[in-house]
């Protein structure tokens, strides 16, 4: 059973039980305390007998049940109006010194809530937080004394065991009912927020998984200048002193091309991401190092597919002349050299199949 239905059922049962309250009066009742009258989790445990018939209409679950049909029809102003009317009724029983302040709070809430529901949806959240201040209606418990605080700011109302039970209820029950309604009204905003944050977290996953790897100094560099309040992962990336592996295809003529495995150091470069980090394009300056040749200098182009790098480097030979080489990343080299092998294997397999059929 959904919790909200459970609460409504509980309220209806309490209402029914209240009519036979005198019969049940013999049942043990707890001594009312500030917590039992004011702490929402304790208020909810009150039995019909403990609530009492005269209080039943003001019991927070009863108020919530009363406005259910209005909420079903989307009549939020009327629903809140009903809760406020009940609150005004009840507040008359509050301590005399608090009545005027409480009435002012209710008047302000009624005015602000009307304004809130008239606002376009994209302005409602800020208004609810900055003007209406929904959290203002949430009760808190003093950690040192157990007293309940109402309107817990600098001018809070403290509800203690010394305050008569009827006055405690008059102060707390309206606040509990109103806080619940305000919470429910903001439910779509919370759903939207969770959706946005989930989507944002996925983009960060993609960024880490798909983007070109960053070593610590690059990670520091790429974080520079970002506002601490920027939530999105970056759409570009600087490359700085980034080591990797590569293959140079070197030689003077087509017939004497040789493969040279090299360590590559990308000195400085810039990449731009597209399509959620699955595509990128960029340019970096590189130096390559091998065990038996001098250092070569050149550049890399970062390709969006298949996320590989291809470039050109140049180094002096023993005669002082400069010789160029094609430079590719290991993954691209494996892909390119793997194609003929794959084709040959496919051809061999096909021939073998043909022979078998013969």
């Amino acid at each position, binding site marked *: 059973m959904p919790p909200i239905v459970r609460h409504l059922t509980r309220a209806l049962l309490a209402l029914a039980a209240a009519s036979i309250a005198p019969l049940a009066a013999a049942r043990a009742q707890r001594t009312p305390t500030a*917590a039992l009258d004011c702490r929402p*989790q304790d208020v909810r445990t009150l039995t019909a007998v403990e609530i009492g018939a005269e209080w039943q209409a003001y019991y927070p679950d009863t108020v919530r049940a009363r406005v259910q049909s209005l909420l079903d029809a989307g009549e939020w102003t009327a629903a809140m109006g009903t809760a406020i009317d009940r609150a005004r009724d009840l507040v008359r029983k509050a301590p005399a010194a608090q009545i005027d302040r409480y009435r002012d709070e209710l008047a302000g809430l009624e005015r602000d809530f009307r304004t809130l529901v008239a606002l376009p949806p994209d302005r409602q959240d800020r208004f609810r937080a900055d003007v209406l201040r929904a959290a203002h209606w949430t009760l*808190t418990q003093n950690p040192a004394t157990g007293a309940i605080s109402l309107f817990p700011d600098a001018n809070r109302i403290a509800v203690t065991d010394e305050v008569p039970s009827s006055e405690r209820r008059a102060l707390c029950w309206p606040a509990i009912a109103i806080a619940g309604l305000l919470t429910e009204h903001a439910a779509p905003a919370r759903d939207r*927020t969770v959706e946005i944050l989930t989507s944002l977290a996925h983009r960060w996953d993609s960024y880490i998984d798909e983007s070109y790897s960053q070593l610590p100094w690059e990670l520091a560099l790429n974080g520079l200048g*970002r506002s*601490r309040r920027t939530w999105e992962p970056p759409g570009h990336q600087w490359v700085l002193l980034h080591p990797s592996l590569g293959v140079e295809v070197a030689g003077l003529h087509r017939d004497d091309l040789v493969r040279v495995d090299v360590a590559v150091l990308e000195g400085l470069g810039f990449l731009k991401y597209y399509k959620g980090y699955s595509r990128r394009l960029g340019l970096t300056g590189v130096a390559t190092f091998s065990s038996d040749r001098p250092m070569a200098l050149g550049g890399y182009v970062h390709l969006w597919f298949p996320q590989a790098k291809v470039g050109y480097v140049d180094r002096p030979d023993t005669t002082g002349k400069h010789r160029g080489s094609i430079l590719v990343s290991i993954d691209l080299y494996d892909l390119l050299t793997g194609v003929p092998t794959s084709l040959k294997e496919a051809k061999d397999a096909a021939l073998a199949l043909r022979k078998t059929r013969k």
Partner: protein
Amino acid sequence: MARVLMLVHGMGVHGADWATDVKADIVAAAQTFGLDGGFSETLDDDAVTLVPISYDARFRKWLDKWGNDSRELVSFIKKNSIKVPANIVGWLENVDATENNFLWSHVVDVILYRFFDLVTTDVRVSVAKDIAQTWRDALKVDPQAEVSVLAHSLGTSVTHDTLALLATAPPPKATGFLAGDRRLANVFMVANVGRILETSPQVFDSVICPPSVRANGYCGTMFNVRHDLDPFPAPRPFKPGWGGDDFVQIRTKAVREFNVHDFQHYLRDPRVHVPLLRSLFGFDAISPASAQEAMDAYEAARGSTCPERLAAFVQDCRQRVQLIEDSSDVKTLISAGAHFLADVQEIKAACAGGP
């Protein structure tokens, strides 16, 4: 009524089941006062649910990526005796070596969170998503649900920063948990390093405070918990001049384990778990007499099986805390913390081998 306590871990490696022991300690503490029946594994409108919030996987993700990319390169460079221009081989080799490196695993988390803005934001997004989801779900189960947070060590800084942004400067249109509209019931900051690691917003100026400090304070009550011998919360300690009774400073001093920074060591102390349980089950759930009895029993209980070493260790810790108290340098935190953890490991090993 539904009550949810989100548990946020501190620095170091935290696997998927990191919260199992923490939860067990909280339930065991509740058992002392007959409250252990009030917990539920799933969100329930009439029980307390303990929900772990983890961010360590984000650090590991970044480190793993460094490691995977680096290992192949290092192997190649060594195999071919290639002279690279800088001695980066050692760096690359050990960059993700956290599993077997206790100190590095703690230190690297602090460094990554504080100094690498991309990692900082990634961690905050992940934690914001988990907190918002838990909070939203709790309010779906029960609109009156009380949602609280218990954070430890680095988790205090992560929690502060994330909540402050969620409350005042969330991503566009993600405005479902703004300060003024929503408020957590309680925030417990244990071994708080929020101030030494603070960036923007700063911890004394943000909305992560109780309503007596700022009307739009993001928690009904705030508890700041610190052990006298714990070096981590010592530099730039969290000592605001807040006077309201909805802000509670808890100082503990009992030593039952050498690692007084440990989350569970804190939670086992009644000076910590009594206010925690009262915040979940109500102030009257634990009588003042029962609370005092638990505290007295804990103070009187025997601690380490290695009393002589413990006495010397306590003396060392006291001196260390005095030295770094009020330092404002993050390096002090990292250095003192690393030395402390190294000492704990060393003394534990020595004790295991006999006094």
